[in-house]
């Protein structure tokens, strides 16, 4: 039935799409009076040619993996969770409370505690929209958008009025105690005479993110629950026929989604900032949408798309360091990548399909 080999669809199409996005980006860069090749070299060198560059790329990727997985799981149940942003911020609150008020003896225990706490807080923030959708039919897209705003207000209130150390200038919690410091890649992979990942924020959370990918993959494609989530996502009446409760699946998949978004805070809040700041999610919730869509809601796809966006973030930063470009250029490049790999993929796929079909016809004739 296939019109072209699976590998071409999985590899060739995104590659060509990225290439087109890159060419257009190059035009924009050239229009700004810069040499695009030089810019590209800076990005690749800064993001991929040094361990510290990887340290940043993977740090960002970790955030996007979590939010991307969050959006994916909800997608499988045919819900559009735009609330990753708010869920991640509330997850950050969970991390902060857990790290500040429990005297952890060791980071490993703290990590477990914070993981549970972040997931629970994120899930909680998804629970209300979920239950309203399930029981009242309130459209999840609106309620999650609204909950992003409400989360921002809540965190703002808590940071300004409650958790801010007295006299502190910043709307942020106190720095977490040393005991909950998570090992960074530098801590983990450097030797005495060879410092790797110097100063970069990638930390052990990256492995949690990979575990999360595997867990989500197992959940969605290997468990009964995943089977039910996907079935519900494809057909609500079908789910009912099979004895799958729509309320239960709606709520559970949103809880999982919210928990995954909340987990992002382990990386950003516990791993990097080591305190809770305002707007700790920094738009990763929204990037997660693009990541999930580009990754076709498959954990492997999400992982790769998150890497791509990690690269764009870090490469963009490098570009900004050495080329003096406005940061909005990075936004434009991201936009082009999302557009071509995510929305205009058939622009590439169709001609390719025709090509393959033509060669196959020739082959059989």
């Amino acid at each position: 039935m296939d019109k072209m080999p699976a590998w071409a669809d999985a590899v060739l199409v995104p590659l060509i799409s990225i290439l087109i996005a890159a060419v257009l980006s190059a035009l924009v860069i050239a229009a700004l009076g810069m040499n695009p090749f030089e810019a590209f070299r800076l990005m690749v060198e800064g993001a991929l040619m040094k361990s510290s560059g990887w340290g940043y790329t993977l740090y960002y990727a970790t955030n996007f993996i979590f939010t991307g997985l969050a959006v994916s799981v909800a997608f499988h149940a045919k819900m559009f969770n735009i609330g990753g942003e708010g869920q991640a911020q509330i997850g950050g609150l969970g991390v902060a409370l857990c790290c500040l008020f429990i005297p952890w003896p060791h980071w490993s225990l703290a990590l477990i505690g914070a993981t549970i706490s972040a997931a629970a807080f994120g899930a909680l923030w998804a629970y209300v929209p979920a239950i309203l959708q399930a029981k009242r039919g309130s459209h999840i897209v609106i309620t999650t958008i609204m909950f992003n705003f409400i989360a921002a207000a809540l965190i703002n209130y808590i940071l300004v009025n409650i958790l801010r150390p007295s006299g502190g200038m910043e709307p942020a919690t106190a720095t977490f105690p040393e005991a909950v410091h998570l090992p960074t890649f530098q801590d983990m992979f450097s030797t005495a005479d060879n410092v790797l990942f110097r100063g970069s924020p990638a930390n052990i959370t990256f492995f949690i993110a990979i575990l999360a990918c595997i867990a989500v993959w197992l959940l969605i494609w290997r468990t009964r629950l995943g089977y039910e989530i996907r079935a519900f996502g494809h057909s609500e009446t079908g789910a009912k026929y099979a004895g799958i409760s729509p309320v239960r699946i709606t709520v559970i998949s949103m809880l999982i989604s919210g928990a995954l978004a909340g987990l992002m805070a382990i990386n950003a809040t516990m791993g990097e900032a080591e305190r809770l700041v305002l707007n700790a999610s920094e738009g990763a919730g929204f990037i997660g949408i693009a990541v999930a869509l580009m990754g076709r809601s498959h954990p492997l796809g999400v992982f790769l798309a998150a890497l791509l966006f990690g690269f764009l973030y870090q490469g963009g930063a490098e570009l900004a360091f050495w080329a003096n470009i406005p940061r909005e250029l990075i936004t434009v490049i991201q936009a082009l990548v999302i557009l071509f790999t995510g929305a205009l993929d058939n622009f590439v796929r169709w001609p390719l399909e025709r090509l393959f079909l033509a060669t196959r016809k020739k082959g059989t004739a």
Partner: protein
Amino acid sequence: MSDPSAIDPAIELKGISKAFGPVQANKDISIRVMPGTIHGIIGENGAGKSTLMSILYGFYKADSGEVWVNGQKKDITDSQAAISAGIGMVFQHFKLVQNFSVLENVILGAEDGAMLKPSLNKARGSLKHLAEEYELQVDPDALIENLSVGHQQRVEILKALYREADILILDEPTGVLTPAEADHLFRILEGLKREGKTIILITHKLREIMEITDTVSVMRRGEMTATVKTAETSPEELAELMVGRKVLLRVDKKPAQPKAPILEIENLRHTDSHGVERLKGISLQVRAGEVLGIAGVSGNGQSELLHVLGGMTTATGTVRVNGQEIDLTGKHSDGQSRRARGIAHVPEDRHHEGLILDYTAWENTVFGYHQAPEIQSGLFMDNAAIKTEAQAKMDRYDVRPPDPNLAAKNFSGGNQQKIVLAREIERDPDILLIGQPTRGVDIGAIEFIHKEIIRLRDAGKAILLVSVELDEILSLSDRIAVMFDGQIMGERLPDETNQTELGLLMAGVTDTGGKSAIAAVDAQLHAKEAREAAQHD
């Protein structure tokens, strides 16, 4: 072409080919349809009938070939071109806007001018006219979603007639109709034919072909294998042309050996989300080793009955399975609990209920049973085992193509139905609920499905069969209960009743108590009323 007759064919297709990617749906097809005739097209599921007609209607574009209409070559690039060539089509899956009124659907694309008002007024007038002329009554202001399928189909026909079609294509028009509705449709088609219109009719039902068509073409695997005059052929010959082997057209079964009642239903009541009571105190028994057929015009509560028994919705009353009461409202009133109690359910709507169309065939073979312990390994589902089992089931049920990794949506209707049946029957249930088992399914598959149902019966299972096909009810059931307006109007034995009497009961005419002692004349009279009553459902 060496046809000496002076008149040009209404439709002549020459060498039509069409491929969907690697699938060759139509291969070099040529066909001539003479004006003022009814021309039947038959063929197995997936033979390419719908594709060919869609090309004629400009919905798909042929890869090669020519279309001639009334002796002139036409370039049918889109449906607009087909419409102006005087072609109208009633698709198998209606192309209606569900939340539009009948009137709006009729004028869509055939408006006069930019304002709606005048078009609507004009259409209201001509609709009235058409309705009188062809017995096509529908309420012009009703919303499509509130109409029965039969009425929706009338709207489709009206759409074509409103566009002054001379050539009308109907793709499986009777698949979803009740016998009364089907009869009515054929009267309409006869009427249209008398008016000089040309009709192309796709159907799986040989009885219909024999009854109404003048000529018939047979398709197999994308090719046109034969075109014959209906008067010069027989159902058996057609079936063989179609499937490529001899087909048994009648169900071959031994008398039932019913044992103890397995399913006992008492005073079952169900009220839907709009507050309408759809089941008004149903009481029934199904015994081991028998098929209880439920006849009825669709919309009289049969679907709700299946839904309640299958655990898709709640109800009040008592239902006992093997003597034990089951939960009708509480936590254990869902489909999974029903399956645990040995109730299998082949739903009426395979697209929306019985299958997840986007799931692969193997995933669908455990749909509803996915919680079963024997297909788990630890925390996970044992996909390898499920796949192996699926392959075996597909081979046993002759599902084509026998590829468990193919998505369900890529199978034809008959094969989809086989997947559902395989799943439900192979679980070895005590009770099988089965709704519209052969809707839209080709003859070869029907034969198979009927055999399976009887095999299950003979294995001592209780079978509750809901079908709008009286033929099917009569040939499969050991007992027949007739539903009307949420109630059981009466029970009959198939040998002691006939279509007329059943039709009477289906129309809500009170149980006369007699076996089949109604005078023939009387029955005829009532049957006519029954049909009319059915039309108002």
